[in-house]
């Protein structure tokens, strides 16, 4: 009994299945035999290939990390990049001054009118003008700082001019140093190291100190100062929190004036949405490009390709070329008689024709999306080999495209049935409307007029899927605005609108899918009704 019953139902279903299979297969073969099919499919492949080339090209240039603040440069060529010199408080414009280099420590000076005006000691003398009676001169010592006018002892001694040095000698006559006949050195605004007595004439000055011991500091690679502070509000590289350098300015380390040095202030509104990000100087100063710009550009590419290339361009052109004449052409050619003289309902016939059309366009779209998804997920930014988080988004794009192809296919097929002659013009006008509404949906997602288009709902699907799969996209947009790292993500993506006030992307996804399916089913039903009552000559 059960066997029999099942056998019967199987027969009914398999018969329907065979009819559907035959018409679907016939439709696919028919479309395959038309040049226009291959032209429109080829143009689609060309479009997507161009986008891919553009993507690959852009990933090579802009996804490479950029040193936004320039602190990976080693301006003085001492082997230590600016970032490292900053942390150690050394100068990157002085070869002699680098992390671990010996440092000059001030001990004392004789200023213009100080008393006494002589001093004895073993010092590093800095900017000394006066008479120096040496006990010992360290002719091997090197200048601790390139801007000191360090005496080059290697040169020959210079004979002093006649007259009293600080009264008769003019500025231009003055050598940096010279030796008087009694062995006393006359020095003019120079620096050197040695032991002896300095005597400074009133109105001139001298300063002395000592050099610390130098120690070895490992040179950091330049790459350490590229993308060194990811956007997280922490001074990862420590160049804001360093000890003494530049700390005299109280605002230097508190750029956002919130009373806390070296922090990032995240400003939220009542609903918990991030309003702005205010960072102190040298904190998050070089946001990670491969992580932010790379990621953001990558998402922008996928969202933009999904919305414009797949939904709005392929979604419109494929049905315009392939679906408009599905039944109309058969009717005009007279070949419809062969098909309708078989025990097949006319309504079924429309459905199977559309199935055949969908067989071609859906497999085409899925293959195309798979190829693009595979390439972009392999070469896209990120640490993993394959960006798995891309795939749900691509699946959403495929879903949106398939639904769009179904909806437009049903609409165009029905229009072709009702108006065999002028249907194509109606469809082109309608296509322009759909394209404009798609653009409006992207730019002004809250506009209600766009709800009167199929493309609006398809774009909602992509928006919702992006929110589900890449939940941090919203944060990324805000970071992009806060740090001026615009990649277009704010243009191409908005959170889905139709969430029934819940903000839940799944709600928007379900609503959009249901609306698009309803449009398709409604248009198929209208087409069936018209076709059922149409007299065929």
């Amino acid at each position, binding site marked *: 009994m059960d066997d029999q019953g099942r056998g019967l139902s199987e027969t009914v279903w*398999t*018969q*329907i299945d*065979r*009819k559907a*299979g*035959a*018409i679907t*297969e*016939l439709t696919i*073969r*028919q479309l395959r*035999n038309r040049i226009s099919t291959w032209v429109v499919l080829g143009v689609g492949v060309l479009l997507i290939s161009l986008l891919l080339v553009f993507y690959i090209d852009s990933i090579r240039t802009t996804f490479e990390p950029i040193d936004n603040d320039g602190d990976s440069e080693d301006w003085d060529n001492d082997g230590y990049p600016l970032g490292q010199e900053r942390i150690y408080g050394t100068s990157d414009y002085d070869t002699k001054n680098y992390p671990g280099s010996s440092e000059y420590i001030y001990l004392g000076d004789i200023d213009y009118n100080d008393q006494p005006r002589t001093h004895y000691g073993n010092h590093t003398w800095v900017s000394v003008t006066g008479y120096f009676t040496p006990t010992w001169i360290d002719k091997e010592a090197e200048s601790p700082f390139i801007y000191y006018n360090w005496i080059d002892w290697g040169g020959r001694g210079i004979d002093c001019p006649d007259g009293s040095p600080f009264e008769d000698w003019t500025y231009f006559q003055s050598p940096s140093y010279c030796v008087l006949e009694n062995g006393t050195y006359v020095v003019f605004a120079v620096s050197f190291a040695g032991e002896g007595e300095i005597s400074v004439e009133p109105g001139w000055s001298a300063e002395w100190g000592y050099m610390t011991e130098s120690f070895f500091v490992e040179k950091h690679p330049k790459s350490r100062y590229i993308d060194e502070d990811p956007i997280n509000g922490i001074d990862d590289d420590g160049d804001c929190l360093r000890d003494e350098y530049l700390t005299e300015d109280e605002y230097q380390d508190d750029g956002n004036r919130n009373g806390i040095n070296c922090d990032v202030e995240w400003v939220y509104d009542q609903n918990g949405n991030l309003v702005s990000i205010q960072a102190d100087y040298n904190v998050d100063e070089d946001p990670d490009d491969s992580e932010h710009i790379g990621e953001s550009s990558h998402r922008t590419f996928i969202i933009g390709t999904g919305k414009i290339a797949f939904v709005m361009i392929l979604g419109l052109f494929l049905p315009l070329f392939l679906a408009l004449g599905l039944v109309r052409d058969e009717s005009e*050619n*007279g*070949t419809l*008689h*062969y*098909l*309708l*003289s*078989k*025990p*097949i*309902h*006319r309504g079924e016939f429309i459905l199977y024709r559309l199935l055949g059309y969908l067989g071609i366009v859906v497999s085409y779209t899925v293959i195309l999306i798979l190829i693009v998804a595979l390439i972009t997920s392999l070469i896209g930014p990120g640490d993993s080999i394959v960006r798995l988080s891309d795939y749900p988004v691509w699946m959403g794009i495929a879903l949106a495209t398939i639904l769009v192809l179904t909806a437009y296919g049903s609409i165009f097929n029905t229009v072709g049935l009702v108006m065999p002659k002028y249907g194509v013009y109606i469809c082109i006008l309608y296509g322009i409307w759909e394209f404009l509404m798609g653009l409006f949906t992207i730019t002004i997602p809250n506009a209600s007029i766009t709800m009167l288009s199929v493309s609006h709902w398809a774009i909602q699907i992509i928006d919702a899927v992006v929110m589900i799969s890449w939940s941090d996209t919203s944060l990324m947009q805000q970071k992009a605005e806060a740090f001026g790292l615009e990649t277009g993500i704010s243009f191409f993506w908005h959170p889905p609108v139709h969430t029934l006030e819940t903000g839940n992307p799944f709600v928007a996804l379900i609503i959009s899918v249901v609306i698009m399916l309803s449009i398709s089913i409604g248009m198929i039903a209208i087409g069936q009704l018209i076709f059922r*009552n149409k*007299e*065929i*000559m």
Partner: protein
Amino acid sequence: MSEDNKTPSVILENVSKWYGQVMGINDISLAIEGGVTGILGPNGAGKSTLFKLLMGRLKPSQGNVKLFGIDPWSDTSPYRRIGYVSESERLYDWMTAQDFVSTLARLHGMTREEANARAEHVLDFVGLHDVRHKEIGKYSKGMRQRVKIAHALVHDPDLIILDEPLHGCDPIARTSIMNVIRELGSQGKTVLVSSHILEEIERITEQIVILHNGRLLALGNLYAIRDLLDKHPHRIMITTDEPRKLASAFIGEEPVYGVRFPEEGKLEIQTNDLSAAHSVLPRVIVDSKVSVSRIDNPDDNLESLLGYLIGGT
């Protein structure tokens, strides 16, 4: 099958179909069952309209159409048992005949294998077995007609409707198609064949339906109608130099009941029995020793024959 024998396969009850102001079919009532029936009528008589009404392509403006007791406009189930060859010349030229027929066979719910086997069988039946793997686009007109017939036979239908199946065929194809139709009739199937040429139908069947200007003109055995046709006054137009001399020779011949001189150099002979008149014609002309340049039979076509029938009834 037995219950079907009680009711005729094809029933039309007071069926009319008009396109706007133009009458396509005018109040036809008809019941057809068994064997081959020829639907005869000149172009525009309503043969194709009749078939399209039967095939549910058109909705009758008035009256009922029933195939196996079912209205074909609202229900496609009769097509399980019907094969239809439309007048359309277009086929899927890129397909092979085997492909075409088996694809359409699958619309009857056959599996791919069944459909292929059936397609091969019917293509063999219509004499296209050897060329069945060639593209239809490369076929001659007669072969294309046979492909259309094959597709209509693929599900072994009880009722076969053929709209001008001999149209445009060469004599060999014509003979082969006629044989196919006769064979189907002898298998006990109901076959409807339309044509605008009486001789074609005569060679296939004796059972005919004559349509004219959308009306059912005559229905029944061809011989019964033939009797009627024999009373059809025919004219024979002879072009000669001496019409009066020839006319005097014809007067007195039994089948000839009158002569006329419609214009210079022409003689019109009026007869009730065309074949008898033609049998005496050569002898009279030879005996009278008049040179004759041309003999025409202006009435020997379906149009004038039907015109006579209308006037006669």
